[in-house]
């Protein structure tokens, strides 16, 4: 019948570890002491079964499963059954003494069991898989409850799979200039699409200068995949890249790939350096000057220009208009957590421009005074929508409600073929901790006995159900935008795909 209870006994702690099915050997192998012990356990199990019999049918099954983890001294087969229960592939061996409902056990390992035949008089054994030990609630050795995810489900596609790199976790093939740049991105020391693009290309210039082609390959083939790509991945891990950065990278890769293999390395690197310079000059520096000049014409005498956050183009425009002698006033609108508007206000104030500074909550009042709204962009989408710092859409909304024209200043390098209808699918999520107020600290666990501990938001990770969302961008519908000024001219938002094809498709 049953197998060696002793053998099964010894194996009980490693209940899962038994590879070979423990075969039932006869009862006769039991010593009298063991017999006595077994009988006692049977009795206990019977009592427990009677108690549990009033409950659900699955209860005895569960109990049996759990109890079997302890020391097992069942009648004959049950030890093997106990050992076997973790091996679902086992052929059911002995029949349960008591017909048990087929109701599935909570653990699926029971499914293979065959709980038929009440051939024997019913002792409190329930099923093959169970022991006759009383239903001792097993101390929870189930896996710890997975910590509740603090990601907002609506944006779960935007959360980074890996945490941001730190000094210690930077891969070793990253050039130091790129590494420094990555940290400048993640701390917002360099913030703003244009600035990031320019900084990235300059860092690539430095990295390329230090690059040497390994023997056996050509620069054109090796550099893109083995050198540039890891750097780019690192930058992406620090902060997702923007459209203009993507266009810059595409341009650089194209330039690399087109290098004639016969050209020697020094010349190739010089060529790349010059290409980068040319790209920066043509598509950012000169472009910015052209756009600013065109936009200055939009600022009339005694205008009140409203702007949001800090756009380098808007700043250039306002400085140029001021230097041209136009009298105007600027309203800088700002928001948490980046406070970029404050930096713009500081710069403009230093130049003697009259600046009013207001938080985003004051936009309704500020819009009453405004005569023109100038906005910068992260990118212009091909369906005419503007992607810019989160909050821009509210500005444009109020402006269109108050009939104030909205002009977007945007280089063509930021135009993209992508389209979006909402701010949910394509966006960037920043670490939620940035939204916590600087003077809140998590409540410590000491002194918990003093009754109600007043928590602060810094404890948000411990509060189930609480999530903090820190979006970086939003999408402004095209109908709120009056005009887009790029280096090709002033156009309505619906003409963005045309210019994109013209300017970027060749890239």
């Amino acid at each position, binding site marked *: 019948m049953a197998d060696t209870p002793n053998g099964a006994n010894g194996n009980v702690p490693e209940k899962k570890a038994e590879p070979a099915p423990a075969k039932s050997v006869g009862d006769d192998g039991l010593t009298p002491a063991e017999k006595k012990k077994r009988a006692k356990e049977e009795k206990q199990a019977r009592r427990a079964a009677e108690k549990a019999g009033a409950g659900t049918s699955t209860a005895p099954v569960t109990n049996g499963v759990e109890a079997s983890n302890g020391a097992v001294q069942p009648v004959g087969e049950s030890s093997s059954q106990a050992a076997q229960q973790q091996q679902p592939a086992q052929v059911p061996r002995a029949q349960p003494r008591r017909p048990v409902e087929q109701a599935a056990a909570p653990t699926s390992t029971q499914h293979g069991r065959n709980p038929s035949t009440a051939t024997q008089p019913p002792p409190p054994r329930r099923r093959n898989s169970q022991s006759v030990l009383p239903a001792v609630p097993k101390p929870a050795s189930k896996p710890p409850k997975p910590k509740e995810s603090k990601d*907002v489900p*609506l944006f779960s596609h935007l959360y980074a799979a890996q945490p941001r790199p730190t000094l210690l976790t930077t891969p070793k093939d990253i050039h130091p200039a790129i590494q420094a740049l990555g940290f400048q991105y993640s701390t917002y020391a360099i913030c703003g699409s244009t600035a990031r693009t320019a900084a990235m290309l300059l860092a690539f210039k430095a990295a390329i200068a230090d690059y040497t082609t390994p023997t056996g390959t050509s620069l054109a083939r090796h550099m893109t995949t083995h050198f540039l790509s890891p750097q780019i991945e690192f930058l992406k891990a620090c902060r997702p890249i923007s459209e203009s950065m993507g266009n810059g990278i595409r341009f650089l890769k194209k330039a690399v790939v087109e290098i004639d293999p016969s050209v020697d390395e020094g010349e190739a690197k010089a060529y790349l350096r010059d290409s980068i310079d040319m790209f920066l000059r043509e598509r950012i520096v000169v472009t910015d000057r052209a756009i600013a000049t065109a936009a200055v014409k939009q600022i009339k005498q005694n205008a009140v220009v409203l702007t949001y956050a800090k756009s380098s183009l808007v700043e250039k425009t306002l400085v140029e208009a001021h230097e041209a002698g136009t009298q105007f006033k600027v309203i800088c609108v*700002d*928001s*948490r*957590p980046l406070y970029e508007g*404050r930096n713009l*206000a*500081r710069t403009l*104030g*230093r130049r003697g421009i*009259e*600046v*009013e*500074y*207001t*938080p*985003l*909550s*004051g*936009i*309704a*009042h*500020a819009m*009453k005074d405004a005569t023109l709204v100038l906005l910068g962009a992260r990118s212009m989408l091909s369906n005419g929508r503007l992607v810019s*710092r*989160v*909050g821009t*859409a*509210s500005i444009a*909304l*109020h402006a269109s*409600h108050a009939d104030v024209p909205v002009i977007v200043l945007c280089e063509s390098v930021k135009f993209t073929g992508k389209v979006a209808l*909402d*701010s*949910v699918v394509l*966006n960037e999520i920043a670490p939620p901790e940035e*939204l916590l*107020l600087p003077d*809140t600290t998590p409540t410590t666990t000491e002194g918990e006995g003093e009754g109600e501990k*007043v*928590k*602060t*938001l810094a*404890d*948000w990770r411990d*509060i*189930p*159900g*609480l*999530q*903090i*969302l*820190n*979006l970086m*961008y*939003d*999408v402004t*519908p095209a109908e709120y935008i009056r005009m887009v000024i790029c280096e090709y001219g002033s156009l309505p938002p619906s003409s963005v795909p045309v210019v994109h094809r013209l300017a970027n498709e060749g890239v």
Partner: protein
Amino acid sequence: MPSAMNSFGATPNLATFLKASKNNSIESGIELLVSLLQRRQVRNSRQSALATAHLLLRVIGQERVRDVQVLIKRVRSVGRRLISAQPREMAVGNIVRRVLGIIREVAEEASAEPESEVASPSSGGMRELHRPALNSTISSFSPLHQSSALPASFHSRFGSGDSSNDSTPLIQSFSDLSLVEQQQQRPALAAAHAGSLFGLFQQPGSARNTPPVTGTSTPIPSTPTKGKVALNTSTSETIDLKSEILSSIRELLDELDVVDSQIAESALDHIHSGEVILTNTSSQTVQRFLTAAARKRKFTVVVAETWPNDHQATHSTIVNGSRPNDGTGEPDEPFKPLTALGTTVIMIPDSAVFALMSRINKVILAPHTVLADGSLLAASGSSTIALAARAHRVPVVVLSGIYKLSPVYPFDTAELIEWGDPSKVIDYADGELVDSLTVSNPIFDHVGADLIDLYITNLGGHAPSYLYRIVADHYRPEDVDLMSKA
């Protein structure tokens, strides 16, 4: 005075006032409240309403109510002082007007009783005193104007003036014609519902179109009339008047206490499972409303933190639930934070409102004041939320007690906006910015009535177009203009 100060010398607030009012004289109580209002130490609508109601209770309690007119004058003068202390705190004016309405109503009922079987059209008209119409037009723009479109009977004004002297309800109407009409309709109905069509059948006014010639009717002096009434009834009637008035004011105080729970009662009628609700500020009314629904339904709440004026309180409310009742006038039952009831709460900065609005099912706002045309003054940032909701066709629900509803019609909404501390936006420590910038920090936004879809008050849910009726039910037109010294 020691009892007027908190033991730690903390900033005086509503609790200070309530404690002090037990001991001090009326005049110093009024002074205390005026200074608390001026210094914004009694801050929001609920606190102001509570303080005003308590003060008026004491004022009336101390008055010897012989003459209702004198009482009304007294309340008006106290009200004037309170309102001028903080004109933008409309709840003060609302409570003053409610109390005046209570006084008038009680007085009407009292004088209507002996007359109740004689409710005849002719007697209906006569009773009120009237003075020459003033040139003030403010009351004529009150929506109360439109609410009672009852025919008036002017003939009775001139004709049988003497016969009903003994049943004068002692109501004065100061301003113009149609308001006088309204007064004439009120008397016979003990419930005094303005705008009830019942009066339509009572008074087939043939002379209704005849405007009264101002100044031709002699003002009936109040004192002798009142004396007549006093003669007719015993002096116990005047004592009853006062206790009636006091008990009605106490009911008003009770109403202020239960406003939030009454609003929260209808929560399950407005929130279904799986909703995503957007709200802002740390308003306890909204939190109670959502908590009441969260006990039975699972939904998600997105909270905009309302920087720079309310963000710390909002953070604290999200995490801790109800504000501790430190005498700030909050009702006593604390409530748990929504997260403790299984609701998912997502906190966002105010800038992300438009970005998320396409995924929001419903917006719930709490106002500072509701104006008579259905528009409201709410925490700054609410107009952005309401506009974004309109752009995405998301319904906007406003939770407000009746005490926040003001009969004032906003001509210049910019006047009603209060401005806050600029150092919350830029710290004074940043010298360069302080020198070169102008910093503005409005505390309130005006949200137009066309952006609101539903008002939920302690009386139930209403469309914005219905608010004028509620105004008419709770306020008297002659009380709308409190500032004229009459």
